[in-house]
């Protein structure tokens, strides 16, 4: 799997990146709905990404603090913090859902 992935990736793609999506209250508080975000390492985990986002400052650190109730979905599926993120993934962060 790993070898195939590297092989298929174009040589010129130096900056691996993901799509970050913030929804509902998090979108409002961060003032961001969607952004292209550079992946720090080849296979970052969700936990690593969250740690980087917290470093952005007060509102990120507050909303994404450990123990706060938010969810992370990668490519439309809710995942746990150890989930590996790959270039091209859509990573959404959102509050507990309140539909229905």
């Amino acid at each position, binding site marked *: 799997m790993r070898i195939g992935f590297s092989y298929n990736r174009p040589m010129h793609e130096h900056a691996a990146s993901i799509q970050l999506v913030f929804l509902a209250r998090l979108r409002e508080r961060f003032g961001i709905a969607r952004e292209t975000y550079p992946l720090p390492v080849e296979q970052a985990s969700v936990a690593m990404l969250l740690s980087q986002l917290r470093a952005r400052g007060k509102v990120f650190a507050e909303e994404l603090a450990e123990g706060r109730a938010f969810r992370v979905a990668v490519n439309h599926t809710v995942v746990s913090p150890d989930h590996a993120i790959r270039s091209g993934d859509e990573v959404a962060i*959102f509050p507990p*859902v309140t*539909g*229905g």
Partner: protein
Amino acid sequence: MTHFVRVQTADFDLGVEVATLRAGNPGVGAVASFIGCVRDLNDGDAVSGMFLEHYPGMTERELTQICETAAARWSVFDTLVVHRVGALQPLDQIVLVAVSSAHRGDAFRACEFIMDYLKTRAPFWKREATPAGSRWVEARASDDAAAARWTDTSAVA
């Protein structure tokens, strides 16, 4: 077996939706359905309106998976979920879940299961307008408890 899932701003007609769901299938003996409506009161405050946001793409995927899980657990023909988004007022319909089956027990069980899971898993968020201003609705522990019932095999037939 088909799972019909729609997210839309438009209102829906319960009678038309259920008639369409069971149309032409004389094996259907039971259709259980549910509609959720906007109340004018929530958590003790007057509600004058709300705005429903969702996560396009994931919403449809999640709703379909919930219906598939229900259909794997109970004997049902077809399932339908219609969920509205956008601006809604008290008395407006929000959500419709309908399940057709040969017998009523399966239809009731699957319909309530889909609603309970939708409440805790489908990416919708409500912002409601109250006299004190607009606020995001908080998730309820009672909804988590309702969904958790379905994994406690001693409590549910």
